[in-house]
């Protein structure tokens, strides 16, 4: 009794007719709700980002000018004319609201972010798009690989939870699980790139090789990408192991597992059809949720290796105070993560026969 009362306090009120429609079309209602949440959160996050960028003292042009002033002599009047010109160019003379609308339009519709200071006057979006494939490649492969490896190990460790080795592995994985990728990267670089010289310490490929789909190029890419990927994988695997293990152990305690044992089914069949089939969907959801923190961690890794991805670009633009590029990267990362999560949530009911909306 009490529970329904407090439940109702948490949900916004709907008219009786609306509620009935939602009850009848559960799946459609779920899709609408989830899309609504997606749009709302996306809008909210982009707006917060906008506010952030406007809260910053000074405006991008004056700040950049101020940093230039420190290293060069300047003519005040000329400088002012240039500043005014660029203010116009960057739309900084418009009202805050107009800027906001322009911002949203830039991001969502025209995808034209204005010139980048890093590589003036190339538009920011070009600069970002140049870096994007590298991040997608590095993060994509690392994440997928660590997800697979971590999940398999997690199942093994969860299945044989009585063994001492499983316990030890779990404790180690737990302890390491929140060490930043960056620290691992440092150690890897020091040992394998400098002391042992097995792998190159920076860049995505040897600068002497031409960028083309040749074997030589691809080998170089792989060699250069190994240490950055390894830094991410080593810790990510720990995380997936833990998450999977928890899921497996929870599932193992379910009644249908006891029943499966009573049926005398082989271990392999039980593992695949009774455990994994019931585990894997929450794992996919967990994957989506972790995307944001994986990106957070990868920024520093890319920076250390000077890997030409979004993370490195982010730091470069930061140090140069390249406003447009910064805005673009922030918006892109927000968009990417939120969209991935929404896509996963929308795919879930289709994949899972028993999801209740």
């Amino acid at each position, binding site marked *: 009794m009490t529970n329904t009362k407090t439940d109702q306090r948490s949900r916004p009120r709907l008219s009786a007719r609306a509620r009935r429609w939602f009850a009848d079309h559960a799946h459609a209602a779920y899709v609408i709700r989830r899309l609504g949440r997606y749009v709302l959160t996306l809008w909210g996050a982009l707006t917060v980002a906008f506010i952030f960028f406007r809260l910053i003292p000074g405006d991008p042009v004056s700040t950049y000018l101020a940093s230039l002033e420190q290293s060069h002599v300047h003519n005040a009047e000329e400088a002012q004319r240039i500043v005014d010109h660029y203010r116009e160019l960057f739309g900084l003379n418009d009202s805050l609201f107009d800027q906001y609308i322009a911002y949203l339009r830039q991001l969502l519709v025209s995808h034209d972010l204005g010139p980048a200071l890093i590589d003036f006057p190339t538009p920011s979006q070009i600069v970002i798009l140049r870096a994007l494939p590298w991040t997608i490649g590095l993060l994509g492969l690392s994440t997928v690989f660590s997800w697979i490896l971590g999940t398999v190990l997690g199942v093994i460790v969860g299945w044989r939870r009585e063994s001492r080795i499983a316990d030890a592995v779990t404790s180690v994985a737990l302890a390491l699980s929140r060490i930043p990728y960056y620290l691992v990267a440092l150690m890897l670089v020091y040992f394998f790139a400098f002391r042992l010289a097995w792998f190159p310490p920076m860049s995505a490929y040897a600068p002497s090789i031409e960028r083309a789909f040749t074997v030589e190029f691809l080998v170089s890419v792989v060699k250069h990408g190994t240490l950055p990927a390894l830094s991410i994988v080593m810790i990510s695997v720990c995380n997936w192991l833990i998450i999977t293990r928890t899921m497996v152990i929870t599932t193992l305690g379910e009644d249908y597992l006891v029943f499966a044992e009573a*049926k005398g*089914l082989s271990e392999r*069949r039980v593992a695949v059809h009774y455990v994994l*089939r*019931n585990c894997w969907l929450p794992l996919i959801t967990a994957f989506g949720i972790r995307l944001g923190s994986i990106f957070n961690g990868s920024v520093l890794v890319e920076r250390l290796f000077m890997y030409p991805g979004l993370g490195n670009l982010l730091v470069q633009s930061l140090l140069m105070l390249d406003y447009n590029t910064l805005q673009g990267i922030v918006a892109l990362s927000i968009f990417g993560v939120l969209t991935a999560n929404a896509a996963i949530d929308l795919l879930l009911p289709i994949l899972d026969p*028993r999801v209740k909306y």
Partner: protein
Amino acid sequence: MADSHVRSAKRAGAESTVAEINDLRVFYQTNRGMTWAVDGVSFSVGRGEILGITGESGCGKTTMANALLHLTRPPGHIASGRICLYLQDSEALDLLKVDKARLRKIRWRHLAYIPQGSMNSLNPTMRVIDQFADVIGEHTSTPRADIRNHVVDLLSQVGLEPQIVGKFPHELSGGMKQRVIIAMAMALQPDLVIADEPTTALDVNVQRVIIQTLADLRDRMGMSLIFITHDMAVQAELADRVAVMYAGRIVEIGDVRSIFKSPLHPYTRALIQAIPHVEGERVCLQGISGSAPSPTDWPSGCRFHPRCPAAMPVCRRELPQLLPVEQVGAGPASSQSLVACHLHSSVLRGRIS
């Protein structure tokens, strides 16, 4: 009917017993220490016999059921005991000592299980047909097409329509899931089925169907059934023999008629008396005073003595053993009554001395 008994007895090589349990002890390891949920249980089950096990909640019925299937899991542990199975096409074996591979082969094919609250026993991500197919495929080499027909047939026996096969468990009601499990238990015509409260969550009509089906199976296939329920009325209908459990031990075991007509143990007597009569005068029902003891805190001596109207001083000191009692017009050995009560053992001792 008698024919099938004889036939199956011959097939089993003159053994008319399908299972013999000796001094089974199961404990739970909890924060408060070890608690003995099953404390020295012994009985036997004949071929084609339905043995009913009854008792209040907390007496250890389900723990024993799990142990009989060697499904006990931590924090529960089987401390000691023997569970001898006399299977149709093989020799006798001790379930607790068999190696894992052999155990797996025996499961379901010879020893099936209908768990309590079967609602959660079906895999939520598999269709009904697949959950039949996997166990049938595991233990036999029946081709897929035949499996489907077989399953439809099994389901019809429990009153379910063929459409069920393609459904997922969450699309079925609780009662339907229960019946699916029962149908699955019969799929391989096992020697022994252990059913833990199979009819509890069902409405009376479905109950009727289930009881009828189980009886039919016993008649047709010579299947033995250990049937656990606290519902004495169902015991009366279905069971051949009844074992009454109290606080981890069997306090009385005997032919169903003897149990109901002349219960020996005071606890059994109270249970029988608590059944309301449909016909006749309205009588004030007698409950049993007090409440069932918890395994962490069993009374000394006879565990029923605090609630027993006929308690004697010796009852507080000594734990009574399960001993046979002379029955007038006794049948074969397995239908002899056994009771664990000082009232009766003193009578016995009195006669001997």
